[in-house]
């Protein structure tokens, strides 16, 4: 049996279903992200696991123990909140030691464990400071240290990076992954940022309107999105009409009954009158390492991403040909739930 198991987990608020019969198994040591737009039920799911929200139906099993209705204090899980939720009247050291004091850990052991975890999150120099004297990233580390020091079986992260600015966010992503690997702790992270979910998770769970719509490893999820919504939410996608040819191979075909997804980076730009489709460049955005072109074609406007290889970019208005490998087209199923 999996380490963390959600069985038909559901939550109703009055007439509204926030989470509907959700099933999820998380293996020991795994890093799983719950990804979805706001209001999709991902935070409610996390709060039910943490014990802050009553479960309406179903079960939560942790390491063989049913914790569905256990009090938060008795679950012993490590929780990192979006707002960090540090205790402002306590120093970094006391914040981190709080959980150990609640567990009546003897003082010498307590000191050692606090020192060790502060070193792990690289805050050993700031033990005496107060939260208000720390930067956002440092506060985030204190919150992480406070959750980790009690050596919880599972670490729950609720949008841990959404309050940080872009540069710091990327740095903290890798930092969280490093710490998670080093400690080997089973981790569940809630996020609405697809790049965050893709870059650091072992598996990504996509949620929509209270339901799980796809569970896959990041690469598989990106390459094989199941639905139109997922293909647009995880990465960028060009949606094209298509149909199967005589050999059963999927081809782009205007008026075809299938919806196909083609990632912008999988389209090649060719000279005019070459390739499968003709178009004109109508917009051009410089992203540093890449150029993002908008190409208007008979099938609508398509996004094309080109690596910035140092050569001059194509000007707006240039006529180009588009080509792609037909094996990279993905057939999408119709959304069963609306987001």
């Amino acid at each position, binding site marked *: 049996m999996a380490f963390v198991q959600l069985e038909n987990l559901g939550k109703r608020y009055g007439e509204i279903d926030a989470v509907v019969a959700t099933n999820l198994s998380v293996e020991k040591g795994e890093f799983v992200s719950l990804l979805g737009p706001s209001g999709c039920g991902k935070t409610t799911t996390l709060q039910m696991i943490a014990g802050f929200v009553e479960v309406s139906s179903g079960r939560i099993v942790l390491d063989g123990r049913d914790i569905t209705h256990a009090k938060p204090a008795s*679950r*012993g899980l490590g929780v990192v909140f979006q707002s960090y*939720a540090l205790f*402002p*009247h306590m120093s970094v050291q006391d914040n981190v030691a*709080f959980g150990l004091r*609640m567990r009546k850990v003897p003082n010498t052991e307590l000191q050692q464990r606090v020192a060790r975890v502060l070193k792990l999150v690289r805050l050993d120099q700031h033990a005496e400071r*107060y939260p208000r004297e720390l930067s956002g990233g440092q506060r985030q580390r204190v*919150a992480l240290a406070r959750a980790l020091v009690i050596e919880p079986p599972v670490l729950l992260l609720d949008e841990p990076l959404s309050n940080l600015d872009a540069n710091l966010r990327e740095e903290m992503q890798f930092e969280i992954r490093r710490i998670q690997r080093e400690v080997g702790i089973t981790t569940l992270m809630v996020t609405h940022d697809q790049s965050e979910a893709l870059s650091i998770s072992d598996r990504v769970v996509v949620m929509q309107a209270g339901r799980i719509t796809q569970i896959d490893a990041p690469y598989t999820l990106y390459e094989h999105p199941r639905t139109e919504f997922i293909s647009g939410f995880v990465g960028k996608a060009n949606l094209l009409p298509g149909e199967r040819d005589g050999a059963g191979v999927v081809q782009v075909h205007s008026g075809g009954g299938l919806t196909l997804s083609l990632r912008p980076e999988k389209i090649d730009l060719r000279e005019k009158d070459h390739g499968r489709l003709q178009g004109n460049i109508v917009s051009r955005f410089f992203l540093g390492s890449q150029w993002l072109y908008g190409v208007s074609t008979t099938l609508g406007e398509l996004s094309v991403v080109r690596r910035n290889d140092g050569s001059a970019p194509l000007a707006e208005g240039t006529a180009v040909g588009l080509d792609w490998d037909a094996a990279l087209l993905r057939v999408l199923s119709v959304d069963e739930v609306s987001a």
Partner: protein
Amino acid sequence: MSLLASVRQGRQGYLLSAPALTLYLGLLVIPLMLTLLLSFNVFDYSTGINSNAYTLDHYSSLLGDPYFYEIFLRTFWISALTTLLCVVIGVPEAYILSRMGAPWRSIFLILILTPLLISVVVRAFGWSLLLGADGLVNQTLQAFGGSPMKLLYTPFAVVIALVHVMLPFMIIPVWTSLQKLDPAAEQAALSLGASHLTVMRKVVLPQIMPGVLSGTLIVFGLAASSFAIPGLLGGRRLKMVATLIYDQYLSELNWPMGAAIAVALLLLNLLIMLSWNRMIEGRYKKSLG
């Protein structure tokens, strides 16, 4: 340079605050100075106030007479007890209030504030109707076979009415500091293994101490100088300092003595409140900034 900075540095700042300063000077500083001056004037029962002669007599009789000590002591223990009761009732009340959902929260907040809209005299009479020798409380007692108790004109009546009047002044500052709390911090403490009681004691209470401190200062200050409630519910015998001052001014017509008592009350009040503020703030300053 921003407007604010130029206002801060230039004379413009004084100009802009001149109306407020004038008001402050005219309505507070000057009368206080006059009172201080008056308290040194010679008084004689046959000739009245002699504003040209000065004496320390009033202060020396204040220091020498145990009658005054008793009244000052009573005033301060009643105020301290009122403050303590306001903390005991007001802090949990403010906490519960902050946890209520709409629309109950606004309804109860208004309910708590409505006593402030009713004249203190009316409220004091209300209490005297309840607590009087033939009041509702004693009637109930007798109906159940008990013997009537003397409630009105006792410290009990004064304290209970003062707590009733002062409670909003405790709840409002505590409520304000509760608003600044991150509710997730309580969840974090729970997830770390703390009981609800420990969360209150170690997480919530220390963070709302500034609010409790301002509440105690307001309540103690207002209670120690309160006049209407001790006057109406304490009666002629149970005097507090404010009623004593009133007597000196209007019954004895000894204005300089009344002024001396008023100055003494002001100084003692200041002394108690400043040391209390220092004591509490000292403990929480480092952590709460």
